């Protein structure tokens, strides 16, 4: 019964008459009779009240954990209230790609501001308007580096598994090769990388911090790649980037990452945000929408979609990417988030996440959960467990805590600025109890 149709039966009759057909079905004359439907095998429509009740019941079937110590690609960072408020504005929500610059300055300027912030975060020269998520950003970055001579991508096995899978899938599509760089002690094995690199390698992809939360020697990795004539792609965590060496400082040609921590809710995996930035030398190869500054007929500064000659609607089969719709509203969320945090705030979020992880690691060490890998880490780390991980995690779940993510040989714990000392102490107390 639900409907968003303004037309009344009477108006439809008037319109049919104006069109010159007697009934609405006649508009479908071109549809072969053999495939015209009698109706769909679906329940009848419902009223808004019923749909609301059904959908709320579905939401209620999920459990929202009170406390979260799990990251592994999706992070429970604090989302300032202003982010939701701004991005809920219907003007932003219900517009499409800003093709008509004259009535789209709001979106164009917000993307230009986003691009600037991503450049600042990464230290790069140019950013696009966003791609689907961090994993597809990594895959698109690999595609940017390939040419006829260099067709293989070397990807750190310590990157997020979904990122690796996505790069593999994209490369398989393009009949390009992917080789995994093995890990050693939870980090990319630099010696192995150096041994693998050859002159048909297009790029090296490294994630910093890596999937296990460990900090990599990104500069050395980049240097190795460049020595072999390959490009260096660095995948980063955008909040960690506030205090970690920037991709620029690490020598990256392309920086990519998952923008979810910048104000996007966990939302069962999406919508998230893929950000991509690169050096001046590469910007014409960036896929997706890009906003540029120009002036209007009155010589006032304004913004437009630009460099469209790269894109599919112009180049068609010669385009290097097919992306058009992206994650514009998520990019706006990120921009509002970064504007609200400012440099100090973002550094604080990073520093708090870091300090809390180190406090947790220390406390866990004391009760028999030693760290599995040595060396520096950021907000995530793997510990061994005195009992099977599943058993431990189930106990935590019963106390409304989503514990770390079970990985081979242990648990991958994560903290953000949201995890208070009280929460951490409670977690440790509970674990102690479980394992006693």
């Amino acid at each position, binding site marked *: 019964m639900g*409907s968003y149709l303004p*037309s009344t039966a009477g108006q439809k009759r008037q319109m049919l008459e104006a069109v010159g057909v007697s009934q609405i079905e006649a508009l479908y004359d071109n549809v072969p009779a053999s495939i015209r439907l009698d109706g769909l095998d679906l329940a009848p429509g419902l009223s808004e009240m019923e749909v*609301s009740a059904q*959908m709320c019941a579905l939401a209620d079937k999920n459990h929202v954990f009170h406390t979260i110590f799990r990251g592994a690609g999706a992070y429970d960072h604090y989302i300032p209230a202003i982010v939701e408020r701004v991005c809920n504005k219907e003007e932003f929500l219900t517009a499409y*790609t800003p093709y008509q610059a004259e009535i789209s300055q709001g979106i164009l300027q917000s993307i230009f501001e986003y691009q600037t912030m991503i450049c600042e975060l990464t230290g790069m020269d140019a950013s696009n308007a966003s791609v*689907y998520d961090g994993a597809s950003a990594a895959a698109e970055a690999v595609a940017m580096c390939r040419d006829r001579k260099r067709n293989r991508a070397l990807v750190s096995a310590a990157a997020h598994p979904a990122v690796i899978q996505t790069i593999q899938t994209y490369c398989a599509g393009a009949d390009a090769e992917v080789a995994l760089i093995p890990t050693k002690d939870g980090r990319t094995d630099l010696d192995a990388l150096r041994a693998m690199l050859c002159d048909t390698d297009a790029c090296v992809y490294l994630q910093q911090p890596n999937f296990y939360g460990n900090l990599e020697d990104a500069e050395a990795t980049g240097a190795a790649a460049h020595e072999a004539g390959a490009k260096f792609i660095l995948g980063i965590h955008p909040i960690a980037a506030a205090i970690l060496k920037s991709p620029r400082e690490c020598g990256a040609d392309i920086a990519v990452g998952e923008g979810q921590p910048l104000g996007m809710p966990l939302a069962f995996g999406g919508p998230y945000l893929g950000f991509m930035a690169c050096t001046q030398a590469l910007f014409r190869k960036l896929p997706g929408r890009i906003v540029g500054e120009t002036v209007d007929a009155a010589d006032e500064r304004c913004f437009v979609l630009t460099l469209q000659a790269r894109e599919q609607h112009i180049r068609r*089969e010669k385009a290097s990417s097919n992306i058009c719709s992206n994650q514009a509203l998520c990019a706006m969320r990120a921009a509002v988030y970064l504007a609200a945090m400012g440099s100090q705030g973002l550094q604080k979020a990073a520093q708090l996440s870091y300090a809390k992880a180190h406090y947790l690691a220390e406390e866990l060490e004391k009760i028999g959960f030693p760290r599995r890998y040595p060396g520096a880490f950021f907000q995530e780390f793997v510990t061994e467990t005195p009992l099977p991980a599943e058993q431990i995690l189930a106990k935590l779940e019963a106390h409304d805590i989503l514990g770390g993510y079970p990985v081979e040989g242990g648990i991958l714990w994560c903290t953000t600025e949201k995890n208070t000392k009280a929460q951490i102490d409670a977690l440790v107390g509970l674990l102690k109890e479980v394992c006693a």
Partner: protein
Amino acid sequence: MNLLFEKSVPGRACTLLPDCDVPNAALPEQFARQQPLHLPELSETDISRHYTELSKRVHGVNDGFYPLGSCTMKYNPALNEEIAALPGFTGIHPLQPEYTAQGCMEVLAEAERILCAVTGMEAMTFQPAAGAHGEFTGLLLIKAYHRSRGDLQRTKILVPDSAHGTNPASATMTGFEVVNVPSSPDGCVDLDALRKAAGPDTAGLMLTNPNTLGLFDKNILEITRIVHEAGGLNYYDGANLNAVMGVARPGDMGFDVVHLNLHKTFSTPHGGGGPGSGAVGVKDLLVPFLPNRHVVEKDGHYTFEDAEQTIGSVKAFYGNFLVVVRALCYMKMLGGDGMRDAAQTAVLNANYLKKLLEPYCDAATPGLCMHEFVLTMEHLKKETGVSAMDVAKSMLDYGMHPPTMYFPLIVPEALMFEPTETESKETLDWAAQTIAEILERAHTDPESLHAAPTRTPIRRPDEVRAARTPKLRYSFDA
């Protein structure tokens, strides 16, 4: 107006985060950033006013008529947003145990069930984040299918010349060679050309039906038969599904794989360019290759499973989940009959608007159309010098979003209108009258159209300058 960076004041800040309540830990120097980080320093008032001002420089569906062809700018129901904001959806970690996320998984399963019924497909993946992403995924499935049969010679994808640019681009991304198939004079696929093109090297056909001229290809069954007989598979670009949902199904037309734009047909908002959802539906033969983490129900319990010969991941996790939530709300509201009603009304609205405009200009194709139609300003331009662009820009001064310009490429000076079903007769009447006035003014005062728009926040931008001397970020040194 000023940029956030220009409004920034050193030392100004929002007070969002607490001080550290655990012993501080110092990041080893060798990892520490030295490069300065210029993010704007603003109060919440500054931010709020900035974006309020930006919001007034945007035209969304809620601001007025938005007949952007091929984009299905229908109304975005308020309920969708309310439901997608429920903490029971937004607060769920993608990797939390399945038994704690059964509601999310049921959303995916239920949306899949309904969309399979709508499209005549067997299974559906929601991993692709947008239409183009869906095309890419669909072609990967076709590729995997042929490979699995050892049929390695199928390297070509047939694409009609009226196709969206994404179709050939997606084919290239997937390692295929694109073979363009011309249209016949009536705007449909040239069957002879298709027969010639199809062969043992054909991996598949990508077709939008109704096509970008707004025509339902009357030979659709013949088209898909030709491709099938050549051993290829048929890919349905669902960009225009809004014309036929509930009326005819891609599956019944002979298609093996289809992508849907949930943000178009199923009323989820476009968000200034995304996030969307490019759900991909497949028939039986492609099920073994679906992207990983496909939801399966067993005895009322939902689990994620990977298909035997999965193509892998096209992105992390399960897709733009909250977009699927919105689409499910919409589908539950409409039900089967409601979807058919929506499609029929969309087609009626397009035909009505076309009829109202035909006295004033030329349609690219005569007669009835589906949910959209294309006008050509070729004659107008010859007679008056006024281009499709000028007409479109003039519409801006009336608070109307212009139609899609210069597409499809096979129509000169094209303007492509898609009014959608959520527009009222009153709006269509007003739009037709306004456009008629503009077209009349093209003859009496063409200069005024070249100069348009004049009532918008900015005048026409210098796009050439933007592309020639790219300024892609704010410069703090300037």
